[in-house]
């Protein structure tokens, strides 16, 4: 695979990552958000594979594989199980209106690309627009966490944010050392497990959602 083709593909995949991010933001139901983040992880895996093929970096193959298995299949499956088990309302409850979050997201993209323009030397030939896209994903993921009431959707935001970190790392420096990548993924899986169990336990013992925790303040 030529470098030129890889750059183009990474560019297109960046667009797809952004689009799935918007889908997460605009989703009206928890399931849709989970599907969207799963699709995002799958695209991320493809991006890893493209970079692996272009650079011949074997570690990237492993990372791409782990990404697809862990984040596009395992974690979404886990989340969907939790949603089914706790039978929470399926609507996403936004803290601020959806169109406002979309507007903020548009602002974030402009900011990221604007800052990127001033970071000339960091842009490498192979990465194209990957850096601003990655930064955008990270920031919008945090936005999702900040603007949604349900703990599970906040989890989705965390995954998306994490996808952004991966994409940035892969595209800018052809990936972090393998051990770190695996560690991070394990961290996320562990976080998801803890969160899922917490949601389940809270729901089954006191019949309250995580969002109700805010009523505990003094």
């Amino acid at each position, binding site marked *: 695979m030529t470098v030129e083709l890889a750059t*183009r593909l990474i*560019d*297109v995949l*960046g*667009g*797809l990552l*952004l*689009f799935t991010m*918007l*889908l997460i933001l*605009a989703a*009206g139901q928890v399931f849709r958000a989970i599907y969207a983040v799963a699709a995002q992880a799958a695209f991320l895996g493809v991006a890893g594979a493209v970079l692996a093929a272009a650079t011949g970096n074997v570690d990237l193959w492993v990372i791409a594989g782990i990404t697809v298995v862990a984040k596009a299949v395992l974690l979404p499956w886990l989340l969907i199980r939790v949603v089914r088990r706790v039978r929470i309302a399926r609507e996403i409850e936004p803290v601020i209106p*959806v*169109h406002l979050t*979309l*507007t903020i*997201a*548009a602002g974030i*993209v*402009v900011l990221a*690309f*604007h800052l990127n*323009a001033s970071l000339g030397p960091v842009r490498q030939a192979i990465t194209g*627009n990957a850096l601003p*896209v990655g930064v955008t994903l990270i920031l919008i993921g945090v936005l999702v966490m900040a603007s949604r009431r349900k703990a599970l959707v906040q989890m989705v935001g965390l995954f998306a944010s994490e996808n952004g970190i991966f994409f940035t790392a892969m595209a800018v420096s052809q990936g972090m050392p393998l051990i770190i990548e695996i560690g991070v993924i394990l961290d996320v899986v562990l976080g998801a497990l803890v969160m899922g169990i917490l949601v389940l336990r809270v729901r089954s013992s006191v019949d309250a959602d995580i969002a109700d925790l805010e009523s505990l303040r003094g």
Partner: protein
Amino acid sequence: METTLTHVARTAAQAALLVAAAPLVTGLVQKLKARLQCRRGASVWQPYRDLAKLLRKGTVEADTASPFFRAVPVLVLAATVATTAMLPVLWAPAQPAAVPLGDAILLVALLALARFLLAVGALDAGGAFGGMGASREMTVGLLVEPALMLTVFSVAVSAGTTEVGLLAARRAPLALSWAAPDLLALFAMLILALAETGRIPVDNPDTHLELTMLHEGMLLEHSGPGLACIALATQVKQLVTLTLVAALFLPVGLASDSSPASLAIALGAFAAKVLALAGFLGLVESSYAKLRFFRVPHFLGLGLVCAFLALALRVL
């Protein structure tokens, strides 16, 4: 070198093709929906039969309607069919046309003119259904327009023109090798196409007397040949929208001369593109529920943000 005469002839041929094929596309979407619902469904030629039947029928007119009401179907059909002269269907011009019509902004404005006239006509009969349909259709229309403009813009930035034929010709070498902005603009355009063609999840073309209706509500007082005109206009508008999507994002296979071989390729490519897009419409319509009217702005908002990002990625 393309002379004025050949250009006019080609434009007329393309327009005739679009008008003639428009009911067929509706028939195909209906057929696909029926098959997905495990029904046999009516023949794909059914829309033609419906039109022929309506044209033969008499008319019933509201007693409050002014002469304007009678003129509405004529003007709506004229404005809609005029847009067929602005699209590259089979041929893509290499240089600005001798007969300058093919501008995307003019195309969008003519569709807006048709919508405006239809809405005004709906208020003429003096029933609540017409008014409700008109109000909602205008609302959806005005929400579509800014996103559509951003989409056209983001595509036009790369070619420096909004003339659809030239745009398609200039983007043809890039063919399917999209960059991220193209992809985002395509997503935006597909969302907008659902709204522009009056399909689920924005509107439901199958119901007449539900409160969900937008477009159909406006047609309630039209009958006979007048209704046929508007029905044909709706079908043409649908095909024009699909052709616009194809011209902006899939400009492959367009002919540059009139040799039989390249014409056959162009016709095949056009059929394939329209079939794919019509399939998209049918699939979405079969797998989604209609959105509550006040959810539609969220849906179109997604399109607007996509289009904005497409432009941002292009110019920043």
